[in-house]
């Protein structure tokens, strides 16, 4: 088991390293991109700050809490993008017929299709983000239990993101419709920049249970603030685990439907 893990880790590192090397050669362009993404976060933070300076609270949350929701959103979003960049290349992989090659290699095609296109520039933004989360989170004075819940629910949130990406590429094998679906996913998770409490029903219900932005992003942050019971954490985990299992089932089903079509 450990050996398999080690092997997969090595493969992941090698795939990512190739990706990194390609990017080093486009250094300046990528730095501009990175600057843009960082500025976007910065501008939005400025917006939140100014907004809360004017209104005091947002749906009952103060400035630090609101910023904490936003930072948590960014963490989940960036980690998911960092891990699953390869999904954006899935469609060309299928269309060109290269997926056949993937299937015949002794590495799980699911792993290969999902990960391995990691973008080094996302990696750069993650540590400062974690530091920021730590600083802001600490100011909210959470108990160790709450911090534990936060981390657990973050992992759960990433599991949900993983389940979603698996589902997308599964559907992609059958329908070839991937990029647009991912775009919609990104757009809807973007609604998680603010706590889902701001949305009125029925939107709030949809965002919490149907397209679980609420469970992925709002809930972990709420856990840190002591607003989630152990039962809530447990239930979320059940949802997360179920989602991953279902998505893997879906993937295996999709493989049986794979028609190796090259042009």
């Amino acid at each position: 088991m450990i050996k398999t893990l080690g092997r997969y880790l090595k493969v992941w590192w090698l795939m990512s390293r190739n990706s990194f090397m390609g990017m080093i050669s486009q250094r300046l362009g990528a730095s501009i991109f990175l600057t843009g993404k960082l500025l976007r976060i910065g501008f939005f933070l400025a917006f939140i700050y100014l907004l809360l300076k004017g209104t005091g609270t947002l749906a009952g949350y103060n400035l630090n809490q609101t910023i904490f929701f936003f930072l948590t959103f960014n963490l989940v979003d960036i980690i998911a993008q960092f891990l699953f960049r390869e999904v954006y290349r899935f469609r060309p992989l299928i269309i060109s017929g290269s997926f056949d090659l993937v299937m015949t290699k002794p590495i799980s095609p699911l792993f290969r299709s999902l990960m391995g296109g990691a973008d080094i520039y996302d990696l750069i933004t993650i540590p400062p983000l974690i530091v920021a989360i730590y600083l802001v989170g600490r100011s909210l004075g959470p108990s160790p239990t709450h911090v534990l819940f936060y981390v657990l629910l973050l992992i759960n949130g990433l599991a949900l993101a993983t389940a979603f990406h698996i589902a997308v590429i599964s559907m992609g094998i059958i329908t070839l419709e991937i990029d647009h679906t991912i775009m919609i996913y990104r757009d809807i998770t973007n609604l998680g920049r603010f706590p889902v409490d701001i949305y009125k029903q029925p939107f709030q219900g949809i965002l919490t249970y149907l397209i679980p932005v609420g469970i992925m992003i709002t809930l972990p942050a709420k856990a840190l603030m002591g607003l989630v019971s152990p039962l809530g954490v447990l239930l979320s985990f059940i949802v997360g685990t179920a989602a991953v299992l279902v998505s893997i089932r879906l993937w295996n089903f999709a493989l049986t439907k794979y028609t190796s079509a090259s042009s």
Partner: protein
Amino acid sequence: MDKAIIVDHLVKNFEVIEKKPGLAGAIDSIVSPKKKIIRALKNISFTIQPGELVGFIGPNGAGKTTTLKILSGLLYPTAGFTSVLGYDPWERKPEFLKKISLVMGQKNQLWWDLPAAETLELNRAIYEIPKKEYEEVVSELVTLLEVGKLLNIQVRRLSLGQRMRLELVAALLHTPKVLYLDEPTIGLDLIAQQKMRDFVYEYNRKYEATILLTSHNMDDLIDLARRVIVIDEGQILFDGALEELVSRFAKEKIIKVSLSREDDVKKIETIGKVKKISFPEVILSVPREAVAVAAAELLQNFPVSDLTIEEIPIEDVIRKVFRGGMRRSLQK
């Protein structure tokens, strides 16, 4: 105006920033970039009469395409004088652009996701072609190129050959007087190539258009170009009739011998360079001046049943041109 195209002492240089490999090199090339000058055209001159069909040949990177791009106004000349139909190409005046066309093998102007008919309509509006004239020309082109049934199919769904024929229709529907063809037969199968050549010949004859064509395909040149201009490393090495190129270049002639019985090959090698042996035929190449003597020797010392003397085939000449082997031969 007597000449269609005038090129006088044309020079074109490109400035390139040298990129060194590795990460350190990448940073270095931004901080202190080292510029290198590439001399693509080193003082070339030629003139072309209206209605001529001229072939530009030379190895890759010789400057053929660069010349065409300058003559169509895309590239800015570093020095020298160019005039096409009395206009300065660089000014790209609308009246000038309406009279020329540049067809580059892979550069598509047809809108990919729409039927070709849409692009044709657009071009009609852009070139401001009166409806009657437009319909006549398009119908002729479409017939000549056999693309009638393809006009209303999305361009993305057509094969390469079909697309290229439609690209030609789009490029010619304003009946340009000067036509630049850059590798027109590249990527086409043999039959399509022949059709393309036949079409170019027809167009030249019918519309008395001046045509400049670059190609690596020797059939294109043999079939179409009476006059060729050889360019290598930015300089013109030869400008004249195709036959003249052969006789000027060919320092040798070919002797074809048929032997009535097998003989020692080594002995034949003393007379000339053996190019091919497949009994009973032997093919030798021999310096021009020595051909009579060599023929006499063969007849005297070998069991010859037949003997002919020929010029080196044009293909070999042109092949050598493409490989860049001309410089030494033509520099006297």
